[in-house]
């Protein structure tokens, strides 16, 4: 019978790894694990109380009706497609944001965030190229949106993976806000003045950094308290 070398528990004859610590079972050379019944493989499919298909259909209809009405009104009473493309692009982005969490049976969060970011970029691109067209998409919208997406992805993955504890998460969020502010100000400076001169984002850093440090220390408050006791005794 195999045993887990870490946990010390006996394992099933056909076990490939310990179910408690995932340590691989190491068998002597020439010994292969015994074949055993793998157990039932059928899933009991639990019907979701929330019908994703109906939700997608309802959202689609709710977005399509105002889009269609705005196009018809714009063409009928305006001078061609002037303002309605803004409405259509905005409703398209809202449709993607509403539908993207329900595209897969299991919620693949990174994919969901990436799709939402693409929708945001698409909306911003549409706004930038629609008349009156301007050139702010590449220097402003792209870096800020990409930075926001990466930061949200990192924070969400850290939270889901429970890599950081609660106050450490708060500290990480404050740092992320600081980074985002730097990127926003740098992008705006480069676009407007052609050079980066950080001002207000430094104020954000000055505010967020001490809070992040305090939050990180408070998560380890026992160590802090013990340290303070030690210094008081000195």
């Amino acid at each position, binding site marked *: *019978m195999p045993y*887990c070398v870490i*946990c*010390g*528990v*006996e*394992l*099933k004859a056909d*076990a*490939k*790894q*310990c*179910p*408690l*610590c*995932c340590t*691989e079972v190491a068998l002597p050379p020439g010994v292969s694990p015994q074949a055993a*019944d793998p*157990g*039932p*493989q*059928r*899933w*009991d*499919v*639990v*019907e*979701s*109380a929330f019908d994703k298909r109906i939700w997608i259909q309802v959202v689609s209809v709710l977005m399509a009706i105002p889009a269609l009405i705005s196009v018809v009104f714009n063409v009928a009473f305006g001078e061609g497609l002037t303002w309605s493309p803004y409405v259509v692009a905005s409703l398209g982005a809202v449709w993607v944001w509403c539908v993207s969490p329900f595209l897969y049976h*299991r919620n693949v969060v990174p994919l969901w965030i990436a799709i939402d970011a693409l929708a945001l970029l698409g909306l911003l691109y549409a706004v930038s190229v629609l008349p009156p067209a301007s050139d702010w998409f590449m220097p402003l919208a792209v870096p800020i949106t990409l930075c926001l997406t990466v930061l949200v992805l990192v924070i969400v993955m850290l939270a*889901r*993976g*429970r890599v950081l*504890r609660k106050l450490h998460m708060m500290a990480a969020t404050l740092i992320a806000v600081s980074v985002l502010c730097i990127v926003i100000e740098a992008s705006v400076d480069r676009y407007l003045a052609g050079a980066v001169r950080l001002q207000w984002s430094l104020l954000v850093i000055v505010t967020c950094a001490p809070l992040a440090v305090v939050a990180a220390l*408070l*998560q*380890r*408050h*026992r160590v802090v308290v013990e340290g303070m006791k030690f210094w008081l005794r000195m």
Partner: protein
Amino acid sequence: MDNAANIYPAIKSRKRPGLFRVSATLMEPVDSGLLQEAANATLVRVPSFAVRMRSGLFWHYFSHSDEQIRVQPDVINPCMGLTPEKDNGFQIRVRYHDRRIALEVFHSVSDGSGAMVFLKTLVAQYLRLRGVEVPATHGVLDCDEAPRPGEVADDFVAFAGQSPPKPRRTSRAYHVSGTPLPFDDIDITTGTLSVEAIKAESRRFGVSITEYLAGTFLHVLTEIQTGEAPFRLRPVRLQVPVDLRRFHPSETLRNFASYVGPTIDPSQGEHTFEEILSSVHHYMRYEVTAKHLRSRVAMNVRTERNPLLRALPLFVKNRAINIGYALSGPAIHTSTLSNLGMVQLPAAMMPHVETFDFILGPSRVAHVDCAVVGYSDKLKITFSRVIEEPVVERAFFTFLVRQGVPVKVEAHKEAGCPTV
């Protein structure tokens, strides 16, 4: 419905289906045709399990079902919600896989002891159909007999004392945290130990097996919480069901259990394992007495008989029960430890039955629950978990190993581990 049964229809949801499971593993593969025949006969003998649930104006109620139950192949995610289409309106399921016969029961129908009587009768009937002579003893019912009125009685009313205990404010308990599994998934880890070994270990500390396991569970939960270094240490409180049949002559197969809640408050300071065991032992000896349990049951019966509550329409009552449950149910308990005790079988059945298992259904607040059942010389401790990380099981079983109790661990699927 009996007093305890009323709560489950009100609180059941997709994430909280309110089912538990008992199963028996035989020595030979199960014949599904014979099992179907055995299930039909057993349901005639135990009519309190042959019911469908209906909603009235004021209460949910059971009505007898003349439909035939459909035995189903087993699944990888047991104890998920019952559906009228798949389960033919029944509030139980009978499943089979290889050598295993499993019974999943909605808690309104019965408690663990009642379900075990049904399972033993089902297995006995199945063996009879295979030509084994099985006497109707040791909790096995004779399917040729008519059901006895006592088997469908609501014994809570007869057991309830006159004065309920004074209500005490109970603070929110610590809950194990982790990465949640999808709502239709559950991880099951079973540890098998020798009854003699655990009995000897319990005897060493002068406590019963349930007290020893509860103490161990509290100890590891306390250590896990301390390791998380939270801002505020919360009490670690277990919900331990107590079979009232031990205190009242009853042959009911419906719910007849109450609960006690051994607690350790880590904010009082560090507790050694011996201190925890001593605390659990004295708490259980004080609380698990007929008088205290009668008093607890009296409180529930009085609530059920409250004229104001009775007059409320069902949809309002459901909301009220939900709020009450949210305040006094899993929120104030860290986990559940349910010990069914040793399963006794007639001698003729024993060579045909290898083992019994007991699984509690998913709990989305506690995240991890523990069920215990013994048979022959083996004790099976099964953790059902709805988070990815097996922290509690690992701490529990490795603690037992360190105490000198050998444990064999198996999971029902390779969960949470990278593929080898």
